[in-house]
Every structure is written in structure tokens, then in C-alpha cells.
């Protein structure tokens, strides 16, 4: 589990060792899924923690992203006399890119760090070792419920984010800047496609991001050095690694799904 031990001092081999250890950890995590069903209550508690507790930040950020996007687009499109298309552009850019990516970045900051810190502290205070003593599998009891909860929560959070962004765009565009309400909706419904935009864009991307962010968070928690300094470093690494993984994966997914 300790990648630094395998990787030596070289940065490149250390990074490779981290990625490899993370991949192996995913396999242990998935193998523990059947065993974790007995801890269903723990999974639902994690769903409450990473999902329901993230709603506030997701909703507020979604609202403001939609509002600022509409404000910017309105001023650019008014040069070409195309302000009626701005609602459609807000919806498309939020569904395809901004919604999944921003939700995942916020999710990494809000839930990913909490997962890493919690598991890291469990290790630092020997709670994980105590579980093993009591013949409770820490992967099935601690890691897998958090992973499953994160994978399930991300698409739902992303849907809420997108809905709030459209609402924010409507708020600024229609009630403030005076775009016609009917034009706003008809342009949007004419161009947004259920399969390519909602299913491929919102749902598939956020599912993949949720899996990547929670995998990194749980892995960093388990791989941390069992000291308070180690927990601090692991939390930082969760945010850095998640952000890079989200943006790189976003490019790959867009290239394949478009």
C-alpha cells in the first residue's frame, strides 16, 4: 500500500508507483463490494455525508455559474444580435462540460478531502488496526461504502448543479436582461439532445468523475503515513491528484463521446 516504498526517490517512478498502487487498490475495493453489502447502513450514512451534505455548496455554485455564464454570453452575443441563443449556449456548455467538471472539482474539495482526512486519522489513531484485530475487514467496512456512496452521489449532484445553472441563466437572462421567456426555452429545447447531452454529458461523465475522485480520496487515506503531518499531505495530494485526473479524464471522455 505504501507507494513511496516501491517507487524509490525518483519522481517519475514514484508517480508511476502511485498510479499502479491506486489501480491495484481499485481491484481490492471492487473485490470487497459483495462483502460490504452487510454494512449497508454504513453506505447509506456515507451517501448522506458525501451527497446530502454537499447539496448546499453544489446548489449555490451551480446558480452562480449559470448566472455569470449568461451575463458573459449575453454581452458577446449581443454583438452579433444573437442574444436569443444565449439560453441554449448556457444549457449546452453546462451539460457537456461545466456541470460535470465543476461539480467534480467541488466534490473533491468538499467530500474527497473529508474522506482522506477521516481515513488517515483512523490510521493514525490505530482504528484500522483495531478493526483487523476484531476480524472486521477495513476495506469492506471503511473503503467500499465510501467509494459506492461517492459513485452514486456524483451524478445526482451533477443533475442538481445543472438544473440550478439553467435556473440561474434564466434568472439573469429573462428577468434581468430581458430575453424573451418563450425564446429562451424553445431555443434550448430545440438544441439540447437527451442522449448526447444529458446521458453522455451529465450522467456518464459525472459517474466517471465520481468514481475517480472517491477512489483517489479513499486510496490516499489508506496510503498516508500514520502521523498528523502525513494526514495533511495526503489531503493535499487528494485535491491535486483529483483535479488533474478530472480535467485529463474530461478531455478523454469528450474526445470519445462527442
Amino acid at each position, binding site marked *: 500500500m505504501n507507494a513511496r516504498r516501491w517507487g524509490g526517490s525518483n519522481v517519475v517512478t514514484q508517480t508511476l508507483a502511485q498510479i499502479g498502487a491506486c489501480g491495484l487498490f481499485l481491484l481490492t475495493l471492487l473485490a470487497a463490494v459483495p462483502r460490504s453489502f452487510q454494512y449497508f447502513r454504513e453506505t447509506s450514512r456515507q451517501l448522506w455525508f458525501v451527497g446530502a451534505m454537499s447539496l448546499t455548496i453544489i446548489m449555490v455554485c451551480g446558480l452562480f455559474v449559470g448566472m455569470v455564464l449568461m451575463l458573459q454570453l449575453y454581452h458577446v452575443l449581443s454583438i452579433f444580435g444573437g442574444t436569443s441563443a444565449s439560453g441554449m449556449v448556457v444549457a449546452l456548455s453546462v451539460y457537456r462540460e461545466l456541470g460535470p467538471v465543476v461539480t467534480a472539482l467541488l466534490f473533491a474539495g468538499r467530500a474527497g478531502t473529508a474522506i482522506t482526512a477521516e481515513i488517515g486519522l483512523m490510521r493514525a489513531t490505530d482504528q484500522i488496526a483495531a478493526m483487523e484485530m476484531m476480524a472486521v475487514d477495513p476495506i469492506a467496512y471503511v473503503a467500499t461504502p465510501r467509494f459506492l456512496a461517492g459513485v452514486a452521489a456524483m451524478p445526482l449532484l451533477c*443533475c442538481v448543479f445543472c438544473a440550478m445553472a439553467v435556473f440561474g441563466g434564466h434568472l439573469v437572462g429573462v428577468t434581468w436582461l430581458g430575453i424573451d421567456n418563450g425564446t429562451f426555452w424553445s431555443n434550448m429545447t430545440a438544441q439540447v439532445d437527451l442522449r448526447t447531452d444529458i446521458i453522455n454529458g451529465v450522467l456518464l461523465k459525472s459517474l466517471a468523475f465520481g468514481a475517480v475522485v472517491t477512489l483517489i480520496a479513499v486510496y490516499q487515506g489508506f496510503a498516508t503515513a500514520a502521523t498528523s503531518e502525513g494526514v495533511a499531505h495526503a489531503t493535499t495530494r487528494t485535491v491535486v491528484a483529483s483535479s488533474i485526473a478530472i480535467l485529463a479524464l474530461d478531455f478523454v471522455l469528450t474526445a470519445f463521446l462527442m
Partner: protein
Amino acid sequence: MSQPRSSYAIGTGLFIVLGFAALAYLATQTTSVANVHQGASYTLDARFANIGQLKERAPVKIAGVRIGQVQSITLLPGQEVADVTLSIDQRYNKIPQDSIATIFTSGLLGDQYIGIQYGTAKQLVAPGGTLVFTKPAQQLEEMLGKFFGAGGIADNLGGTYTVTARFTNVGTLAAGAPVKMAGVPIGSVQSVHADPLKLDADVTLAIDKRYNQIPDDSAAAVFTSGLIGTQYVAIQPGGSPDALKQGDEMILTQSAMQLEDLIGKFLVNGSPADKQAAGSVPASSSTARKH
């Protein structure tokens, strides 16, 4: 995390319900699902000489009200007409037989749609029947061309599956641009090279083998999609009994029109010095007089 169980159970339930409600809202209120009326419908055929930028699922309207959508667009091999199948709501089944189907554009830059204007005949067009009277999409270049008296097709030539064509000016035409006949894509531009001796552009067109009945006196023209769209090569069929073959060169070509040239000529027509220049073969003149 020592919250009492009921509080997180309610919170989680609320979160799941809210998430799915948001998904349902996105899927039904902001997508084209809301538009696609899934009720009973019947189909009509209409044949157009040119469909312009018309796409499948484009709306069909009567008096501006949506009554159906375009189901499919096909180019019948060997014919220079696009066969458009319209799927129309069963409620609107009283369309007179002599109604006219026209391809309109929403605004200057908008999408194209089919408008049906009622005729006066007592006989109704039967489901599966054909609307005989159609008006093709207006090409901006042709309208401008007519306006400036430069509608004629002027220059030189092309080939077959690949064919070549020479243009004095290709505008911003690039490799990969579509080749269209009657508005339907039938191939793509393979390469665009400047000829170092003849000092014109040598364009190679790759045309689908299915369309091997194109008369060898057909003309190739560089058109623009809409006012600020990308450029493509349009093939206008000729009347020769012989078909284009691999490696042929299309003799008749029409170069890209430079909007700046046209507007420039129009604006300076009043001044005597420019009148002479403006009067000389506007179609093939590519001398830039940019304002």
C-alpha cells in the same frame, strides 16, 4: 459522524429525491424530448431541387406552427433532386393536394425548416403521397449573383471518384469540406493546391461511388453555408449523356464569391473611375478591392 439515524435517513432520502427530480427536469424540460411529439403521424414525400442546410428532424410548419418534422433526406442516385420524407401529425391530415412545400430559413442565420402553404384544391394529399409543388432553398450566392448580374457559371473542370476542378479563387475552401449536389453531401474535398504554372487553385474532389451518374458537363461551384458559414463545393448537374469518371476534370467551375468584392463593387459603382472595372466580368474577377 454520530448523527442520529433518522436525521441522516431523511437527509439522504431528500438528496436522492432532489437528484432524480433534477434529472427528470433536465431530461424533459430542457431537451428536444419535449418537442418530439410521439403521437400518431403519417408521412409525405416532397422533392426539392436544393435543400440547402435542411437537416433531419427539422420542423415542418404551416402558418408558422409546427405540425411535424423531417424524417429523412435522401438523394436518389442518378437524379438531381433530394427526396425529403416529412412526418406529419395525424391531426393535420387535411392538406390540399396542390399545397406548396418551401424551404425557409428562420431569420438570416437560423436553421432551415419546411413551410407548407395550403392550395385551393378540394382533393387532399393522401398519407404516403407526394407534395408535387416545392420551392427549393435559396442560396445566398445565387441571390447575390443574380442581384449583381453574375449568376452565370463560368470557369473550368473536374473528374470522378476522384475528379479535379480548377478555380480562380477557392475562398477559404479547405481539404475535408463537403461536396454537395442538390444540397445533399455526396463526397468531400480531398486536396486544395495552388498550381505554380497556371496560377489557379487545383481542387481534388472525392465523390461517393453511388453517385456515378453525374453528367460530365456538370459545374462545380464554391458556395458558403449561410452568411458566415464554412465553404463547400456544390455540383450543379449538366445535361450530357456521359457520366463523370475517375480522374476527369470538371470544366465548368464557379469561384468563391468574395463578399468584400461584391459589396465593394456595389458601393463604388457611382464613381466613374470604378465603373469600368465594375462592369468587367464580375463573376470570375478575383482582384481584391477590399474596403
